[in-house]
């Protein structure tokens, strides 16, 4: 037994850190957020060069053929750097295509996805988190009609993965007729969400029956990993600031109250790392536990993330809420991760249901 990262995984984390430090400093994030840029193409091109776009795509299609744990490590790094990447949409689309796509669909889309040349939107919110505002998509006769909200990376998607009201998955080309895209603005300006309307839009079914639950579990785990990275960075910033800021003639980090805030954040977040690793590993290797641990990983990280986001801000005092410092980018990233594809209450209910503790 070896509960830890492999040498290769550690190397990947290192090289991602280096790449992000260079490609994605806070000024780059700010520029993306302030200018309403739909996609940070420069950043994605740089990341695609080191294989990030094809992490979970097979070698035969130009990818690295790695596991969800590797993708979770990448998501964690993006959370750390509040990186505006289309990673989630691309990776989820690749997972859906690999799980349920035909050979033709795979060879059409996986190679350009792996090369970072095409982007993907994922429209599964209604099926996974429940419909709001009357949204939902009906599939009939190879066509989709309806509305999907909170579509991940919708803005410049070249293809969409769409869940219909019955839980079936479809592949839709971005330039198919009858598609309308409307930008939704969230508090987190480092990622783009959209509303996508379909009207008699031609769609190809993705055949495999279990595809949506698998896709959902992967998405939950990646969102949990994003919060893990963002939360970790907030703790580091709080600890660093507490070591510099002086009040009452001493650094505030020497007050037990402040030390304990930092220790409490750490005590809460540190076990989350193992939870995320396990959930990601289970998705590939322990399928029976995958959905339970994915739901718990996302629900628990959401709770811990909220606590860390608030507490790390409090440690900073007034400067913590300013745009000048920019701590809020992490705060809001965690805020969006929490709600996207279902909040903790819903996910805990799911955890109880799949264990047979309660009827759905």
């Amino acid at each position, binding site marked *: 037994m070896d509960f830890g990262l492999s040498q290769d995984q550690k190397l990947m984390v290192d090289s991602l850190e280096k790449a992000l430090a260079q490609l994605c400093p806070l000024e780059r994030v700010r520029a993306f957020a302030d200018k309403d840029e739909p996609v940070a193409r420069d950043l994605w091109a740089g990341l695609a060069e080191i294989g990030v776009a094809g992490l979970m795509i097979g070698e035969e299609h130009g990818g690295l053929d790695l596991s969800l744990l590797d993708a979770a490590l990448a998501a964690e790094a993006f959370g750390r750097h509040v990186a505006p990447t289309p990673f989630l949409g691309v990776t989820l689309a690749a997972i859906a295509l690999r799980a349920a796509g035909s050979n033709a669909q795979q060879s059409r889309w996986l190679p350009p996805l792996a090369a970072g040349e095409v982007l993907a939107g994922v429209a599964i*919110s209604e099926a996974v988190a429940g419909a709001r505002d009357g949204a939902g998509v009906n599939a009939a006769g190879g066509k989709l009609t309806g509305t999907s*909200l909170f579509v991940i990376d919708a803005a410049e998607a070249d293809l969409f993965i769409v869940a219909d009201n019955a839980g079936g998955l479809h592949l839709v080309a971005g330039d198919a007729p009858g598609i309308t895209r409307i930008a939704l603005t*969230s508090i987190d300006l480092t990622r783009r969400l959209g509303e996508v309307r379909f009207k008699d839009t031609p769609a190809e079914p993705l055949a495999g029956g279990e595809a949506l639950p698998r896709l959902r579990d992967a998405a939950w785990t990646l969102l949990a990993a994003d919060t893990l990275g963002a939360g970790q960075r907030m703790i580091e910033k709080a600890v660093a600031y507490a070591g510099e800021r002086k009040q009452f003639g001493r650094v505030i980090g020497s007050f037990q109250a402040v030390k304990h805030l930092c220790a409490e954040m750490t005590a809460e977040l540190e076990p989350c790392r193992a939870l995320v690793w396990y959930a990601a590993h289970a998705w590939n290797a322990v399928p029976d536990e995958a959905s339970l641990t994915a739901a718990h990983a996302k629900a628990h990280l959401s709770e811990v993330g909220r606590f860390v986001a608030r507490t790390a*801000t*409090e440690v900073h005092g007034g400067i913590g809420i300013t745009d000048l410092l920019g701590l809020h980018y992490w705060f809001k990233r965690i805020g969006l991760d929490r709600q996207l594809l279902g909040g903790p209450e819903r996910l805990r209910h799911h955890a109880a249901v799949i264990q047979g503790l309660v009827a759905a």
Partner: protein
Amino acid sequence: MDLSFGPEYEAFRAEVRGFLDRHKDEYPGPARPTRADALAWQRRLIDNGYAARTIPKAYGGYGAEPDILKSRIIAEEFTRARAPTGMAGQGISMLVPTLLEVGTEAQKQQWIAPTLRGEIIWCQGYSEPGSGSDLASLQTRATEDGGDFVINGQKIWTSTAMQADMIFCLVRTEPEAPKHAGISYLIFSMKTPGIEIRPLKTMTGHAEFNEVFFTDVRVPQGQIVGKRGEGWQVANATLKHERGMLGDPNQAESRLAAITDLMREETVGGERLIDNPVWRDRLMKMQARVLAMKFNGLRLISAQLNGESPGLAGLIVKLQGCDINHELAALAIDALGELGVLYGDSPHLRAGGSWQQRYMFDLGLIIGGGTAQIQKNIISERGLGMPREPKLAGA
């Protein structure tokens, strides 16, 4: 304990209800958005005793005897009618009580009435870059020159400084004295030459506070409140009022009502949120916290009327009140789920994005006016009589 409403009070309730009904179309709000509308409403409220109720008539208030039941009836009826209550800026909530306590007769005459009417907007110039929790270490200097103080230095986190006409400000007049004994409390116009204001954008996306720079700002010596070198005591009187305002349970009550409406109206997957036991339980849990603080507020008013010290019940108000407001916003966001993260001018936005705005701004209020950690120090040291942290020499 006697909370019964006698006939006198039922008559008073009818009177308040009648007033709100008669003046419905004067409520400032989306339909009456101008400053003139707000000022007219404020004046109407003061004239009828629904704002500045217990402030002496001589200073522009209504001059009523304090009466806890009547105050409660007013609050209840305004909430029921969803009518805007009186203004509550830093001038009305903090400066006016301070002047009533320690101002000269002339200062009371000059400043209280127009402040109550909303004609003068005040900001609070206490914090500095190096002096937040350790406010008494503040460095902004005021030196004597002829009949004036000449002020140099910088304030930070000054809320509403951009809109303010006046500032109440702490400055160091006695640099040689121990840090608490060298401070004075001055009031002056924000239009005085030498004042520069730089807005600071916060996480909400708006500039709710500012940096304020003073370069040779001249203020007549008569604009000191309290005695020279006693500004710390004067400021503490103000801080007490600020903390009461920040923890105001009425605000929590109306938020709770709004979330209750939200849970009745919003559905997910066709199910009303209120029909889901998890949301209902979270709502009821918050209701208990809100009710406890509401009744704690009544207890505080009674203690004050009976001349008793409010003790612990008073010391916990800021810590609890601000946490409750933040948690209420968190509950609304959670209940809205993915809709709850929308912001700005997004389609599908609920309540103009105000739940997110409050969630973030209220985190600021947990920090502002004395951080949660400082509140806990006060509760344990002053309230529970626990030993103070050993001080570093010279600090």
